């Protein structure tokens, strides 16, 4: 293999820009796990996550020339992934920000205590959330956006964002509490 693991980000991106097939594969191999984790967080199931990942990478290679090597490349990739996921969920034609399910006790009943849970288990919990809760929770808790930014990104009210986050946390708590009960 001509391209080694030590190759720098910049070289890799430039090679990709030259439509170097090997470099593109390399880039995919290097960053797809990170991107896939993001897609899983925003999706309702692994199948959707797979489609999101595919769209995200198509978008990445499509817009690679717009990356100016100013910030972190991984950060840029993550942002592209998040935007793709948001667009994907928008296309799914679900009404994501309606007031959904007040009584969600029946949804939990698996997994152990949160801190002992691995990434996969946590993602499973996230995927059980309604899409609106999931999106806002992801953007706020993990991506670290503020409510104002989230409201702008999702074209929703700032208060809606706050409510959705609150409800998402409450629901995640309910999952854990329920799983405790089932253990006892």
């Amino acid at each position, binding site marked *: 293999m001509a391209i080694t693991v030590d190759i720098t980000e910049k070289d890799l991106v430039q090679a990709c820009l030259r439509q170097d097939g090997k470099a*593109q594969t390399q880039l995919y191999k290097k960053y*797809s*796990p990170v991107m896939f984790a993001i897609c899983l*967080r925003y999706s309702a199931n692994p199948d959707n996550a797979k489609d999101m990942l*595919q769209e995200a990478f198509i978008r990445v290679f499509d817009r690679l020339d717009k990356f100016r090597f100013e910030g972190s490349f991984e950060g840029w990739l993550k942002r592209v992934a998040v935007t793709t996921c948001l667009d994907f969920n928008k296309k799914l034609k679900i009404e994501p920000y309606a007031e959904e399910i007040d009584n969600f006790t029946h949804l939990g009943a698996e997994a152990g205590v949160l801190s002992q849970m691995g*990434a*996969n288990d*946590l*993602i499973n919990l996230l995927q059980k959330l309604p899409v609106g809760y999931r999106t806002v929770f992801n953007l706020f808790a*993990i991506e670290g956006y503020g409510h104002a930014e989230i409201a702008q990104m999702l074209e929703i009210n700032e208060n809606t964002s706050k409510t959705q986050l609150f409800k998402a946390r409450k629901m995640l708590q309910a999952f854990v509490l329920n799983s405790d009960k089932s253990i006892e």
Partner: protein
Amino acid sequence: MSEELNHIDQIFSKALDNARIDPPAGVWESVSSGMSSATAVKTSFVWFKSIWLWTGLSVLSLATGAYLYLSPKPTATLASEVKGGKQGIKQSENQQPEFYNQSPENRQVVPEKNSNTGNLNIAGKMSSLPVESEAADYIEPKIQHAGFSDEKLEVLSATKQIETKSGVSGQDSRQQAALQCVHSLHITVEALGQSKWRFTSNGRSESCYWNINSSETIRGGAQFEYSFEGKGGIHFVSLKAKNLQGCDDTARTVVVVQSESPETMLFIPDYLTPNADGINDDLKVGIGPVGGYNLLVFDKFNRQVFMSSSPETSWNGKAGFIDCEPGVYTVVLSYKTVGSANWKTVRKSVLLKRGEE
């Protein structure tokens, strides 16, 4: 445990912020195939773009030429066409009638040029609604909306069906009862004095329940007398009785009792329309028997326009022989009860309308 719940955000972000999960196989294959098709599309799009640009330009120039040729300026020569073109466009901005006189082909082109001027643009869209693809964009949301409302209607009709079903069953039982019972109960009213009335039922039943104004129920016979002493106004009297077959029946009647106190019957209309059509032509004040009556009407500058000392004389919207302006007038009514020395005053704003029914 509770701490953990309070820090749900941190737990998730710690575990998932830099999480790496290997994607399933096959994604890369579809990405690379999608990518090649995407680049192909991209290049062809660029090529298309230039094609469209040139087509657009040529169509535009052709359309301008056609417009100039067809514009109602037969004296315009070929040499002055360029100048005339500019003028023509300006004129179409300013003179709508000329614009409407154009043939439809030109109408479609010119509004595009004037897309910044609101009216013409809308006119262009309207004229081209049935033809252009733009029309589809225009109509589509409406169709969607109609779809939504259809769904709602379906739901509504469904609930209505349920309602009518239950209604039918109720009606059935009632109809069955009606087959056995003949409803013919009614009340005959007879005035015995100023405020005393006699009500007579046509039934022969012994147990009649007489109800006055849905509040007082009195058990009595077929004949019933009641005194509305000191209770002037409108009274509802209803009767519930059983006939010989044991069927329930109800009858209802209304009596109007003249009152000693004038305010029971007091009514000042909200407006008058003096146009001699017989409807609200003058301000007829309704009032019970009075010992004294004074009606004054003032205009908005507080000038008195009318005065009357009898309830029979009403204001016809004139100050003397002159028609008053339409607008708000203040009515001040003073009256006193028969045999009393105390005057009472009521004020009200009334509207004088002209040119309306």
